[in-house]
């Protein structure tokens, strides 16, 4: 009888052990191989000067891709680069997606609507191109989101053309931010001397790297999967 009691006690111990193991293993199974979820924040700058107004459909495609990729808790903003871009008014749409998937989907629909309205209503390009101002505005926005991964997408030819009196030749602090130049088109003079194009890219790379950020160039828009690191 004692043996039976002992055995029953042992069985109970085994059951407790099994339950704990089941809990842990299920937890491990569910979380196995997954890194902690990182929030992402993406700020996209669209050049609206000159001929870039004709390439807005490409920008819209990129925005749609971002909307499909980003998830609850992530932030997204779209702003234009015009003559004086260091301005909240240049932000066309911004959103931090809700923790509930259904609400996040609604926010994405609204965002898409804003983007479509912007691209359809923009007819005339800006006279000047203040890229640095837009980047500074983006840095402010991204730092406020406190996201784990911050990205600035610059949809421009990277040729800065500042209005008279604007000062932008100072170092920018892009620590912890990845700056991605998208669809950097070649200008007419680049065809005369291709070194101008290389120099332009190198200048921006140097500026970003010195500011503590990372630099990338993606000209092939078929490779959008490289744009934002997936969780």
């Amino acid at each position: 009888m004692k043996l039976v009691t002992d055995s029953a006690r042992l069985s109970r111990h085994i059951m407790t052990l099994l339950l704990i193991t089941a809990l842990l293993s299920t937890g491990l199974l569910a979380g196995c191989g997954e890194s902690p979820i990182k929030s992402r924040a993406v700020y996209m700058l669209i050049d609206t000067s000159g001929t870039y107004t004709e390439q807005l459909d490409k920008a819209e495609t990129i925005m749609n891709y971002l909307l499909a990729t980003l998830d609850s808790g992530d932030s997204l903003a779209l702003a234009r680069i015009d003559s004086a871009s260091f301005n909240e008014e240049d932000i066309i749409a911004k959103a931090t997606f809700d923790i509930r998937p259904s609400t996040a989907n609604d926010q994405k629909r609204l965002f898409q609507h804003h983007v479509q309205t912007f691209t359809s209503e923009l007819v005339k390009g800006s006279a000047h191109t203040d890229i640095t101002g837009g980047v500074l505005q983006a840095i402010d926005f991204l730092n406020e989101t406190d996201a784990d991964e911050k990205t600035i997408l610059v949809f421009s030819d990277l040729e800065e053309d500042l209005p008279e009196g604007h000062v932008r030749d100072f170092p920018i602090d892009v620590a912890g931010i990845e700056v991605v130049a998208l669809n950097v088109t070649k200008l007419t003079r680049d065809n005369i001397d291709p070194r101008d194009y290389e120099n332009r890219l190198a200048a921006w790379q140097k500026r970003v790297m010195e500011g503590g950020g990372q630099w990338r160039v993606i000209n092939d828009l078929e490779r959008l999967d490289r744009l934002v690191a997936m969780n």
Partner: protein
Amino acid sequence: MFQQLLTVWSDSAAISAAIWLVLLVTVLYLGRQQAHHLFSTTGRAVFTALRLASRSVLKLEHRLSQRNRDVLMALGRTASEKAIEREFTRVSTLVARDLAHYPSLHRTLADAIEKIEADYQASSLSAPLPPAWSDVVDTISALPKSADPALNKILDNIKDAIEDSHEETLKAFQKATLERHGHLAKMHPQWRTLKTTMGKVETTLDSLEERTCMIDGQMDRYESIRNNEDAAANSLLSSSLTQFLISGLVLIIATLGGLINFQLIALPMSEMVGGTATIGSMRMSDIAALVIILIEIAMGLFLLESLRITHLFPVIGSMDDRMRRRMIVVTLTLLTILATIEASLAYMRDLLALDRAALQQSLAGVGVVEAQFRWIPSIGQMVMGFILPFALAFVAIPLESFIHSLRSVLGMVVVGVLRTVAVALRLVGNLANHACKILAHLYDLIIMVPLGVERLIRHRSTAPDLSDASASAKTTTDTDDAPTAANKSKRSRSTKVEPVLTDTQEVTP
């Protein structure tokens, strides 16, 4: 460093190496006895220590085997007792159900028999047979016609009267026979009642006999377990292993069901608790889904425990019936609520998936396409969400079997491991002993030159003794037995000399 050592005796590396070799061999030759002693002692020490360890492990294995057997037997005895008890309960139920009404059954039988008897009696009271008037009529008819008409008339009258009386008696007899037939016809239902009642009694008795045979079988098994027979132990072990495998298989199936259930509710859970919050590397929504599934399993455990199907929680098993019934109601209600929640979550999952698909299509610039028969997977998911919790509730049954059989299986595995360890220890001990012996021989191989020289010297010093011995042998043997004696002397020489030459243990420098 090595180069310096190599050329310490001479500039020529070969000469220096030769000197080193001679020195080494000399040193080894001088330390041969000690080295052999060291090898021998070390080998024996390792061998003895490992043999002791092996014996201890074997003793432990034996004790564990005995313990396993005792536990197995005790569990088998308890199970057998329960089975016998259950059989007796069934017999008791059978007797209470079928034979409790035996008095009324008996009364029915007695009444039926009484009625049959009465009918029989009634049928036996037959009308008196007609008297032997036919002879009288025949006699009167046979009388010769008299000339007296008056006499003839009288005789005719008598004849008529007798014939009338005969007819009346016959009619009365026929009527009585009809009545008897009526009584016999009334006996039919009684016979049928008797037959049915007896059939019932027969079925009950057959069932009882069957139960008795089963009890006999159980009692034999119980007796075998009580006598601690090997056959019973083997049977119990085999049964335990089978139970372990089957319950393990069912648990794997249940785990897969649980995973499907998890997938079904994890996404909609993010709608409730948010999709971004995490604990460690796990999403809060995943944890919430997991908790719901585990609560369902726990409710299932409690429900089956309250129903006394499983016996994992003695506290629940020892509750009084009223409390137990309440517990059944509570757990079943909670389980139903959880199942309903899961069904609604499954529906929500479908809606979310639809919404997401619509958004993706919109972002891709494709018009939203309405899929036909979309309601079929929706309903399927809802039904699955409702049924899976109840299916998971039954996991308690294989879980109990698994836990009970795990003790035996674990015991068996540990016994196997201990046995392997014991064999390995013994093997290592023997290997160490033999390795030391091989080392001693290798040692001798290195110093074989001085050993050979020593052997030659010894051989020369023992040679005169051998010639003396052969000479004395020659003198003591007969001339007839000369070849035999020579052979014997050869044999004796060889046996005498050989140990001196071969037994290196005895040779000292």
